[in-house]
């Protein structure tokens, strides 16, 4: 028999558990767990389309309906000065595509830890696979929407400029890296502060208007000058991505390299920051869920 009476009321401070997380080690572990992310993405998609009568058709119908609505609304009601862009619908679509990817990834991904608490309490896997798999779902949705967008270009008998293909990779990279950073940040904070769950939809709504989705990026430059544009690019890397997409696809001119560069730097910073916060808070997830 051991004698428990020698045990104090609380642990000696030198024993306190400090979970040191090395960034490189965590990234390597994430790399090894990549199959988990793809499997979870697949699960989300399967579940979604099993519950719907029309199944996978919804993935295509959703953007079609959205674009249809936009066309009616903006071609008849709204008067927005789009400057160089002639066709408002195409202009709007170039903004909607990146924005919808971001907002749906954050909206669902932010709640992904809460939604999977049963698994988190039972299985030891890198927890970031849950929010990241939702980014994967959003990516699949966006690819599907892209088909609808191509049809739209065909209907408008406009060819997107081939230049967009050249720039697609950096655009997508900035967009995804930034989205992953924010989704990691939000999903881990939600566990500690559930109020975020109620605030998040409102913030996303506001983000739609704060991002150049229905207005052109140049507006910022006109209002607050070049410095304002750079500051905006750092705060919201999606802005320069949308701007670049419009320039390359609709006008056939190259993107603004300065703002795009700042956006790239910012998105990488946001990713590492979000990943770090997530890994710091990870140890307490099972206690709080």
């Amino acid at each position, binding site marked *: *028999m*051991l004698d*428990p009476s020698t*045990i*104090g*009321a*609380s*642990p*000696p401070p030198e*024993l*306190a*558990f400090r*979970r*040191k*997380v*090395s960034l490189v*080690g*965590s990234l390597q*572990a994430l790399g090894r*767990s990549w*199959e*988990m992310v793809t*499997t*979870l993405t697949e*699960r989300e998609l*399967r*579940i979604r389309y*099993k*519950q719907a009568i029309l199944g996978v058709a919804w993935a295509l119908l959703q953007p079609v309906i959205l674009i249809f609505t936009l066309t009616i609304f903006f071609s008849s009601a709204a008067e927005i000065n789009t400057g160089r862009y002639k066709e408002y619908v195409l202009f709007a679509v170039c903004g909607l595509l990146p924005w919808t990817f971001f907002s749906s990834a954050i909206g669902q991904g932010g709640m992904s830890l809460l939604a999977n608490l*049963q*698994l*988190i*309490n*039972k*299985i*030891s*896997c*890198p927890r970031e*696979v849950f929010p990241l798999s939702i980014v994967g779902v959003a990516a699949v949705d966006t690819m599907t929407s892209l088909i609808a967008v191509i049809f739209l270009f065909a209907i408008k008998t406009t060819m997107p400029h081939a230049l967009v293909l050249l720039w697609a990779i950096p655009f997508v990279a900035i967009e995804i890296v930034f989205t992953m950073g924010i989704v990691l940040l939000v999903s881990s904070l939600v*566990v*500690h*502060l*559930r*109020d975020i769950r109620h605030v998040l939809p409102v913030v996303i709504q506001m983000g739609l208007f704060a991002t150049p989705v229905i207005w052109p990026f140049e507006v910022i430059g006109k209002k607050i000058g070049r410095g304002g544009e750079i500051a905006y690019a750092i705060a919201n890397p999606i802005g320069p991505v949308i701007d670049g997409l419009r320039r390359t696809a609709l006008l056939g001119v190259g993107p603004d390299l300065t703002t795009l560069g700042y956006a790239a730097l910012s998105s990488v910073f946001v990713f590492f920051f979000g990943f770090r916060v997530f*890994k710091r808070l*990870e*140890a*307490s997830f*099972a*206690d*709080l869920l």
Partner: protein
Amino acid sequence: MPISSKSGSPLATSSIQLGAVRSERVWKRFRADLRQPFLIDRLEYLRDRRRGDTSNSYTWALRDVDFAIEPGEAVGLVGANGAGKSTMLKMIAGVMYPNAGQVSVGGRIGALIEVRAGLHPDLTGRENIFLYGTLLGLKRKRVAEVFDQIVDFAQIEAAVDRQVKFYSTGMQLRLGFAVAAYLEPDILLVDEVLAVGDSAFQQRCLERMRQVLAEGTTLLFVSHDLATMEATCNRGLWLRDGMLTMDAPIREVLGEYRTWVERFAELGSDHDGPVKLLQTKIDGPDGRSVHSYESVTIEFTIDSDESRDCAVYLGVSEGPATPMFVARGASYIKAGRNTIRCVLDHVPLPNGRFYLWTSMHEPSGGIARDLVPWHPARSFDVIGPQVEDTPRAVVRLSPVQVSNQWEFSSGE
């Protein structure tokens, strides 16, 4: 497989052998209050803290738990509900982290724990197996290789392409276990597997445990089924109120644990009925102590408030209310003091401590009225041969030892 540490924990990078588990002065606390992680709760907490009132915010679920398990050991973890067993397992599984101290684990962990909740109802059995296997760290290719074995183990061949929401509870339970059971872990955690599923499935779980043990896997077993634990494990850990009370060979730990459980039962056996059990005597032949294979005389002294028919049951167990055998006697008793004597011949009990349970009833028109409820009357020690060990992971229902002679002959 390379020697790896608990996922993401750099503390465990200090080398630890494959299959070993180390818990070094581990402390774990939980919030005692049921505050939710909402903003208003956070603010209340900060307010309390500013007032210096944090005394009641936490309870310690584990306190200074220190042990080391060598590769290949089979360790049973006993303790009452809420003693911290599951918390300990969660930390070994890498789901939870301690507040102080450190837990290090060498190799991959397989956990036979209740995982039904992790299955997704809208997915088919097949889809769930792949999802679950991948999350547990298996490559899809590997899951595909053991897929048939998993389906076979869970006995869901006919339903594998049906959505899990249409499964029976038993099927869901079996599916959850089956995936974990075919992980090829270096360390296997088993938490109350045998409390769920029908007896045929329990047998298959035990069979799987036997296989895994034979392969040299380290086993950590949590159960209230002490007989299974005794048959499976060679070492016991006893957690009491979050503290490690005993770390010894399984037989010794279970002996102490049973005695401790018994003390609680006896505390609750005070009763005030029409018949009072005044004294219980247990003797071997000629008043000596009790020996294996000899006769035992049990003598109850009772006090009855009136004359009546009385049936007496007595049973012998290792502690719990489920006896190994039972004897019954009935007679008419007079008001006042009576002595009831029962002689058991050739008692097949091995060396050790046993408990005599008894109850008394008044048979009246088919319905027996309880005069004395079923309770442990007293304990007694038997002197004799040690009970024989069973083959590993073969569960003996009760430790009865029958005297035996053997003869081995070769040729015709």
